[in-house]
């Protein structure tokens, strides 16, 4: 019976589902074993046509009201209204900023958790967390208004580091709920950008409040002007990018170390048949850092050996993967869409998850194997009885981590060798680029400066900067849009900064190696990559680390020659395979920061053309950045390039640069050094 039913059901075509061979192999393997994956469900369950358009309102019990844009609607006399009279614009805008609220909450709650751990480290209450990167602490402190020096008897002296850490912790935590003022990090943006925000009245006050206000404004019968709704959407998104996310990145760097380039590997092939494989999945590095520390310790390695394994292999999925990669070189097991597949290898002793992007489907897949699925976060649990919950808190971090690792090792002997199939595929990656390390690598200890990058943008070797980020989405072939967009950009001499699952996809495809430059890049970018010794695609970390892209772009503005504001830069943003509400928040803080931001797949705005036009065109007049939707990846990249060229022209660097020879009179005109 069961067989008969299976035959009737439509299964995913592995090759059509992913461009990645390892993924294709594992989809096939799952189908052999009769295990359903998201790829199969994607065939069966199609997205809701009305929801896709963004015009379904279910904010009260009079509805849900659905106002699809059909051929019958006259664009000049669009009289679609909900029960309460809300226009499609109001509905789409409300839905849109609720997505921003959800996304901003996710990043910011992550940030809050890090800030709390930071506080316990600053108070020296934890045996697992310490202030590791004191230089970064000193760099960050002034931005939070924390003094790093003190005056003693008229002499300026360095302030006690513990004292600084404590005040940084207090100030940082205050950002979530302070009673007055505005977010402190906003002033890290170029001054003209800050002035635009101020003029438009979108300076966030505190992180939590902006989310709450969205929920209020989108309640039935409150804000019914899409422009005013988007204003709050902007305020909330900025509270994410220049608030919660940025604080998360900074405090994580102080606690766990600022990333510097290192070598590792990516894809499911990093799992080892003769090792205990522990896959860490989710987003916060708070837990994973300690698991890495414990799993790499001799005690646990010996214990694993005593259980017949050769050692412990850690691997990451989603942004946790990026976090432990950039700081410890722990390899990437795969992207968001590969989470089930890691278990289907049959060689995963434990999958440890925390928050965000973790599928409930994992519980079902884990049941088919010996894999222990361990949830660790109090706010993220699963109903299935095979899921183990080990709640992790910063005061017992080491203890908890040991318990988890030990549980995985003990599980090694339960592995069914007949069910093990690990794909061979993996590729080397160079990761660990950040604002600081990029600066260093552009000139070393003595001359490190973003000016080197700017100079090569000005002279045209590099055409511009592309930030390509975001998730996977079952509605497009896994990784295809990611890789196609990135390759098209670098082919046209656009250097790519990547985070999140795009970063993992690029790693799996081998694009994060310096050797890639000679194969895929245009001649100018290839030459610069060769000079600096970098890949043309720079891995900047996890999705909260999109804040690194904001700050890197700010450094580019500061280094001079490319305008005065982020919106002047020859740059564009992209999320080719986005799916989560976090992506909408990220997309919008990039737009509000002046960046042309193109999404792939779809955007829930099609049902409200006026609102769509507001996002795609009117926004540019306000912020210098705007939204766009281009599902075709080649066209997607080309529109980014066209925008970059537009900015180059505005900067007057669209023509070949002349070689200016200076004589003494020219030199005398130079500004004071």
């Amino acid at each position, binding site marked *: 019976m069961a067989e008969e039913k299976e035959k009737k059901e439509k299964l995913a075509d592995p090759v059509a589902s992913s461009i990645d061979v390892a993924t294709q192999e594992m989809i096939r393997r799952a189908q052999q074993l009769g295990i359903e994956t998201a790829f199969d469900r994607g065939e069966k369950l199609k997205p809701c046509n009305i929801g896709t358009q963004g015009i379904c309102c279910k904010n009260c019990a009079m509805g849900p009201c659905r106002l699809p844009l059909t051929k019958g609607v006259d664009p000049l006399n669009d009289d679609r209204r909900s029960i309460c009279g809300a226009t499609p614009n109001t509905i789409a805008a409300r839905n849109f900023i609720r997505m921003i609220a959800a996304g901003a909450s996710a990043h910011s709650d992550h940030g809050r958790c890090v800030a709390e751990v930071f506080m316990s480290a600053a108070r020296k209450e934890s045996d697992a967390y310490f202030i590791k990167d004191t230089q970064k602490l000193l760099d960050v402190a002034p931005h939070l208004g924390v003094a790093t020096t003190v005056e003693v008897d008229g002499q300026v002296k360095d302030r006690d580091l513990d004292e600084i850490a404590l005040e940084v912790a207090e100030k940082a935590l205050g950002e979530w709920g302070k009673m007055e003022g505005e977010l402190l990090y906003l002033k890290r943006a170029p001054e003209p950008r800050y002035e635009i925000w101020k003029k438009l009245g979108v300076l966030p006050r505190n992180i939590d409040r902006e989310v709450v206000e969205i929920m209020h404004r989108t309640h039935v019968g409150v804000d019914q002007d899409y422009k005013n709704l988007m204003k709050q959407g902007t305020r909330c998104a900025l509270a994410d990018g220049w608030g919660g996310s940025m604080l998360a990145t900074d405090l994580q760097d102080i606690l766990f170390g600022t990333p510097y*380039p*290192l*070598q590792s590997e990516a894809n499911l092939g990093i799992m080892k048949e003769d090792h205990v494989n522990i896959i860490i999945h989710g987003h916060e590095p708070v837990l994973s850092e300690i698991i890495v520390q414990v799993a790499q310790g001799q005690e646990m390695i010996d214990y694993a050996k005593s259980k017949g394994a050769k050692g412990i292999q850690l691997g990451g999925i989603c942004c946790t993967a990026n976090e432990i990669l950039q700081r410890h070189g722990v390899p990437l097991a795969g992207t968001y869409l590969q989470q089930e597949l890691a278990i289907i290898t049959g060689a995963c002793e434990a999958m440890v998850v925390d928050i965000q992007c973790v599928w409930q489907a994992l519980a079902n897949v884990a049941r088919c194997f010996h894999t222990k699925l361990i949830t660790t976060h109090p706010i993220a649990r699963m109903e299935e009885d095979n899921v183990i919950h080990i709640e992790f808190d910063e005061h017992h971090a080491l203890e908890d981590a040991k318990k988890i690792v030990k549980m995985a090792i003990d599980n090694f002997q339960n592995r069914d060798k007949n069910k093990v199939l690990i794909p061979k595929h993996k590729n*080397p990656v*160079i990761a660990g680029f950040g604002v600081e390390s990029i600066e*260093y*690598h*552009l*000139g*070393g*200890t*003595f*001359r*490190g400066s973003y*000016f*080197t*990058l700017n*100079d*090569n943008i000005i*002279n045209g*070797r590099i055409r511009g900067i592309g930030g390509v980020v975001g998730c996977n989405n079952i509605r497009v072939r896994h990784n295809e849009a990611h890789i196609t967009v990135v390759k098209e950009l670098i082919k046209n001499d656009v250097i790519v900064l990547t985070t999140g699952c795009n970063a993992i996809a690029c790693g799996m495809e081998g694009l994060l*190696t*310096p*050797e890639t430059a000679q194969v895929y890049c245009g001649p100018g970018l290839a*030459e*610069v990559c*060769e*000079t*600096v*010794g*970098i890949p043309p695609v720079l891995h900047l970390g996890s999705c909260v680390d999109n804040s690194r892209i904001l700050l890197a772009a700010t450094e580019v503005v500061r280094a001079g020659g490319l305008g005065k504001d982020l919106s002047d830069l020859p740059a564009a943003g992209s999320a080719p395979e986005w799916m989560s509400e976090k992506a909408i928040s990220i997309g919008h803080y990039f737009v509000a920061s002046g960046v042309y931001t193109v999404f792939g797949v779809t955007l829930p705005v099609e049902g409200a053309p006026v609102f769509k036009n507001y996002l795609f065109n009117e926004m540019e007049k306000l912020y210098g950045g705007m939204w766009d939707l281009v599902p075709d990846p080649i066209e997607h990249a080309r529109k980014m390039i066209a925008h970059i060229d537009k900015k180059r022209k505005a900067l007057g660097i669209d023509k070949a640069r002349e*070689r*200016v*020879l*200076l*004589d*003494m*009179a*020219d*030199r*005398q005109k*130079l*500004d*004071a*050094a």
Partner: protein
Amino acid sequence: MSKLVAFAAIQGAYNMVAKAEGQLKKTLASKDAATKVEFPNTAYYLPVIYSLLGIPVKTIEDLRKPLAIAKKLLPPHVKRVNHLPYLGPLLDAGMAALFASEITEGLRYVNDPDFYVPGEEVDPSSGKIWLGAADDTIMRKRGVEFVDGSAPGFAAIVGAAPDVETAKLIVEDYQKKNLYIFLAANQSGTTVAEQLIEGGVQIGWNTRIVPFGPDISSAIFALGFANRAAMAFGGLQPGDYKRILKYNKDRVFAFVNALGEVNAEWAAAAAGCVNWGFPTIADTDIPEILPTGICTYEHVVANVPHSEMVQKSIEVRGLKVTVTHIDIPLSYGPAFEGERVRKDDLYCQFGGKVQCTELVKMAEMSEIEDGKVTVVGPDLADIKEGASNPLGIFVQVAGREFQTDFEPIIERQIHHLTNYIQGVMHIGQRDIAWIRVAKQAVEKGFSLAHIGKVLHGKFHQDFTKIIDKVQVTLFTNKADVDKLTAQARAEYKTRDERVDKMTDETVDIFYSCTLCQSFAPTHVCTVSPERTGLCGAYNWMDCKASFEINPTGPNQPIEKGECLDSKYGQFKGVNEFVYKASRGAIKSYNFYSLVHSPMTTCGCCEAIAAVLPLCNGVMTVHRDYTGDTPSGMKFTTLAGQMGGGAQSSGFVGHSKYNVTQRKFLAGDGGLLRMVWMPKSLKEEIKDRLVRRGKELGVPDLIDKIADETVGTTEEEVLAFLQKVGHPALSMPPILE
């Protein structure tokens, strides 16, 4: 390709740091750790280490710290595949190699003190051809040429050319373009310095060809020179590496020429130079680094043919050198200014024991013919080898904007303009001029008329705004020369009296001088009739002429305005100007005081005066004097502390000429306060000093001023002053 450079350079850096470490260990084993390490006569310790790291190395022991930093800078080796980024590490490795080089050279001065010849000149006959570190006197003197633009930059050549002719070709081309040529390292034992000597080229600081040393480590002296200039003239602080390196990138137009095979150590040194923004241009097929950023344009350019080396190099560095061609059979340019005509090379001379006179006179436009050069009497072809012959150079100039006030200024140019001719040496001025002509010059067809051609061409070029016509007559008969001399002496007398009568009170306009702002961006000089520019190069009249010639140039008129303090010499208009020009750093200054808000000082000053409180007087020291002074500081230390536009009470920079001007420190008691100056300075300004002493009623003042033969401590000086009854002792306390 850059990967190969990185790979090699990092290897090279490891070698050089290991070598320096070995040398340090060995030296520490054989010598006391407190043994002094220094480059002689400099106030900048080991200058690259001091300027970039802020570490003053004084003893062997002190070398441990920079060595440790160099070791820490050494990056991991570059992996063959999937390597980490290497540009930053490459530049760090280069820097480590350079720190190691400086340590190596510092130890060489300890272990082999006679290896380098001190001073500006080499001695090929005894095989002493390596000059090592430039002392501060040279650095300041030559540094000024970088400041005022007479030297646009320097070419650091490492290795050796394939043959003597090629070496000459390249180096002489740089000379013609006014660049300094710094030589270091060898190619299989051959060096450019030796090739030039073999080719009969004079080398040494005076011809701008400086043989630093035979090893790659001696290239560090070029960078030390550049960084000292940044500190001395740019007013940058030691340890402020970002700004010092940026200053070099923007303002010191230097580059490296690598001649011959580039080994790992050269690659390391070249990578180090990139930190300065100095690119490498090589004649061999090494990997190129063309993208820009750290340097203004390319970083490494390879395979450049020798015939294009010079042109390519200055282009890569982004330098514009304008050389006007002067139609004479000899090379011409500032690089030949310091060249000597020695006894063995001498064909004949004018002046010395016989009369040689120069005079520039204004003429009516209709009176003279532009470009006419006449030699009256025998020319070189008719003068016997070894002869001394009289000479009169009479230059007549005309121009609608010309004034008789400009005559002495134009006349003063004859000295260096004649000296710029290769194979011709000019000494002195006015009626004590002396010209020596080398055999090589005569062989190439040089004639006295060519001096006329040079003056005609250069006057037109440099003074185009005020000069329309130039006519030159050269007399070589005694009678004519004597007649010209008599006329000239009458002229000189009139001129001197005119200048003498000019006072600060009789003019309403002073002049600013920002000539050195290309190097010292915050310093502003103000020049009045009774306070000439502290560099000694510009007096009030020069500034006036300069303004006429170039109304938007570095000399701008300042309405001196209301006199706020006649004793100390403070003027409202000047204060306002200085406040603006110093970007608010300086609110006011006094012309005639070093105790109260003295004028700011730049690194170019000729002399520095300092209060000696115990003696109730002041001392002054000029930059050629390298010894100790009673202030407890040598000239170079004084200049180092107050150069770069600082205003420091108790000290002031001034020109040597200023010492005998009437307003010199008038607010503090004037010249009668002068209790000490180096003997050589006393000699130099003797006549005027005696005259000024008489004016002040102390005819034997010169004898009452102590010098280094009396002592270099305040106590010794005081004892002397008491013995001779120096007037300063009975004056009111200098520090009220």
